[in-house]
C-alpha cells in the first residue's frame, strides 16, 4: 500500500547519472530537510570534528591516563553501569508487575510514582543532597533519634557517595522504565495467563514461562538504552557530590566537564574520546534495533 508513492529506487550513482531537473516535490523535499541538515552540520558535525582535532595529540591521552582521577572515573563509570542499571531494571520489572494490578489505590499510586520523572532533576537532587547532610540532614537525624549514634558522613566517602549517586539515579529514572515495562506487560494476552492457571502454574512459573519470554526483547532493549543514558548522566553525580570527595566519585561524563571547567580542553575531549568505546557499541546496537 505504501509503495504507491515511493519513488523508483535507483541504484546509487554519485556521478554520471543524467542530470534531471528537480520536480517541485523533490525540491520541496530538499528544502524541508535543509533546516535540520544545517543544524546537524553546524552544531554536531563541525563541533565534533573540531573537538577531535583539538584532541589529536597523543600527549593528551598520555596525560589523561596518568591522571589518577581518570582511572577512578573509569572504575566508577563501570560500577555505575553494572550495579545501578541492573538494580534499576530488576526493580522496574518487579514494579511493573505490581502496577498492572487493577486497584484504584494502585492507579493513584502510579500517578504519584511518576513524579520523580516528571519534575526537573535539580531541585530533587539538591533535596537528596541536603537529606544526606551529616549534621542537619534528615537521614542522620533519624539515625541519631533511633539509635543515639552519629550517622556516617554520606557524601564524604567514595563508596558511600557513589552509592548515593546511584540511588539518586535510580530514584529519578525508575518510573520511566517501569512505565515502559508496564506497557510491555499489558501487551501480553490475558489468555496465556488463564491457560497457565488452568494448568496449575505457580506465580513464579507464570513469570518464567509467560511473562519473561514475551518481555525479553523489550527488557534487553531497555537495558541497552538505559546504559547509554546512564553513561551521560551528569546531574546525578555532579549535583549530588560535585565529583568529590577529592575527585573520587567522578564518572566519565562529569570528568569531561571537569577538565573543560579547568580549561584543559584537549583533556576534556580525550575523555570523551575514551568514553566512545563504551558508547559506540551500545549506539550501534540501538540503531540496528530501531532501523528494523
Amino acid at each position: 500500500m505504501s509503495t504507491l508513492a515511493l519513488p523508483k529506487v535507483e541504484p546509487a550513482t554519485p556521478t554520471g547519472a543524467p542530470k534531471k531537473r528537480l520536480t517541485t516535490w523533490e525540491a520541496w523535499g530538499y528544502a524541508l530537510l535543509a533546516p535540520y541538515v544545517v543544524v546537524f552540520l553546524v552544531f554536531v558535525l563541525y563541533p565534533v570534528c573540531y573537538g577531535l582535532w583539538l584532541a589529536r595529540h597523543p600527549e593528551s591521552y598520555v596525560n589523561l591516563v596518568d591522571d589518577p582521577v581518570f582511572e577512578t572515573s573509569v572504575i566508577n563509570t563501570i560500577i555505575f553501569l553494572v550495579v545501578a542499571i541492573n538494580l534499576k531494571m530488576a526493580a522496574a520489572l518487579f514494579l511493573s508487575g505490581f502496577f498492572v494490578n487493577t486497584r484504584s489505590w494502585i492507579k493513584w499510586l502510579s500517578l504519584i510514582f511518576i513524579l520523580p520523572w516528571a519534575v526537573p532533576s535539580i531541585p530533587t537532587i539538591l533535596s537528596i543532597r541536603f537529606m544526606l547532610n551529616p549534621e542537619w540532614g534528615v537521614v542522620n537525624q533519624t539515625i541519631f533519634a533511633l539509635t543515639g549514634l552519629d550517622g556516617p558522613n554520606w557524601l564524604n566517602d567514595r563508596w558511600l557517595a557513589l552509592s548515593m549517586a546511584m540511588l539518586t539515579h535510580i530514584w529519578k529514572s525508575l518510573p520511566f522504565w517501569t512505565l515502559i515495562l508496564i506497557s510491555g506487560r499489558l501487551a501480553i494476552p490475558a489468555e496465556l495467563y488463564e491457560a497457565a492457571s488452568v494448568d496449575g502454574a505457580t506465580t513464579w512459573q507464570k513469570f518464567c514461562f509467560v511473562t519473561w519470554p514475551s518481555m525479553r526483547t523489550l527488557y534487553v532493549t531497555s537495558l541497552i538504552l538505559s546504559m547509554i543514558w546512564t553513561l551521560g548522566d551528569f546531574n546525578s553525580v555532579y549535583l549530588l557530590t560535585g565529583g568529590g570527595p577529592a575527585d573520587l566519585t567522578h564518572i566519565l561524563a562529569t570528568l569531561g566537564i571537569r577538565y573543560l571547567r579547568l580549561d584543559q580542553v584537549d583533556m576534556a575531549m580525550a575523555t570523551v574520546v575514551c568514553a566512545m568505546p563504551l558508547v559506540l557499541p551500545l549506539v550501534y546496537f540501538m540503531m540496528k534495533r530501531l532501523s528494523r
Partner: protein
Amino acid sequence: MSRRSFLRSASTEAKLLLVGIPVFIWTMLPIYHIFLFAISNKDQAFGGKLWPEHPTLRNFAIVFNQENYFLNHFWLQLWNSLLIAVAVGALTLIVATCAAFAISRLKARGGRTVMNLALFTYFIPAAFLAVPMYKAMGVYGLLNHQWALILAMVTIAAPYSIWVLKQSSDKLPFELDEAARMDGASPMQLFRLVYLPLMAPSLVAVGTYALLLAWNEYLYAFLLLSNDRDITLAVALGHFLSADDSPWELLMTTGLIYALPPAAIYYTFKRYMVGGLTAGAVKS
C-alpha cells in the same frame, strides 16, 4: 468457603500494600522534603520534624520579593527559563516537522541518511556532546548569549522529535497524499491542509518534550551562560551550592516554584507524553 476466599483476598491485598507503601515513601521522600523546607523557617527546617510547628509562607515572600543575594534576579531568571523553553519548543517543532514531512511523506532522497544521522546524535549522551559544543559556540562567538543555549537545545531535542514524528507520520495512509496530488495540491498545501491537522497529537507531544527538555536542562545552561542576568533558574539553583552557609530553605522554595510548571505540563499532557513518546522510545 467464603471465609477462605476472604482470607486469601486479604492476604493478596496485604502483599500489595507491602510493596505499595515502601514505593510511596521512596518516591515522596525527596519531594516532600522540598515542600517541608519551603514552608519552614530556617530553624525549623533543620529540626528534622515531619511537619513544622509554625508553617509559614515567608520563604515564598522572600523569593518573590527577591530579598536574598542568591535571588537578586529571580523574576528575570524565571523569565529566561520560560523564554528559552518556549523558543526551543517552537524551533524544534518547526525543524522536526519539516524534516519528518520530507522524510516520511515526500520521500526526499537522502532522507534515510538524515534520519540515521539524527538517531546517532540522539544516542550520543548529551554530556559528551557538551564539550565540543562548548568549544564550537566559542568559535561562533555565541558563548554567554541565550541563543547558544537555544540552538544547543534544539540540536539535542530535534533528533528524537524527528524520529517520533516520522514514526507517527508513517502510519498515515498514503492514499491521502495521492488524492491530494491528483487534485493538484502543491507540497505546501498537502503539508498545511492534510499533514499538520492529522499530526496534531504528535506535534503536541513533541513540542512539550522539547519545551520540558529545555526548561529542565542544567548542564548546557551552566556551561553556555554565565552572566547573572542571562542564566536560567536551573543555573541559579546550582549557584546556591557555591556557599557553605547557603539558605537551603530558600533554595528549596525556589526549586519548588521551578519544578511546578513542568510537573503541571507533564500531567496535563500525560496522555500524549506516555502514548506518543514512550512507545517510540523502546520498540521491542
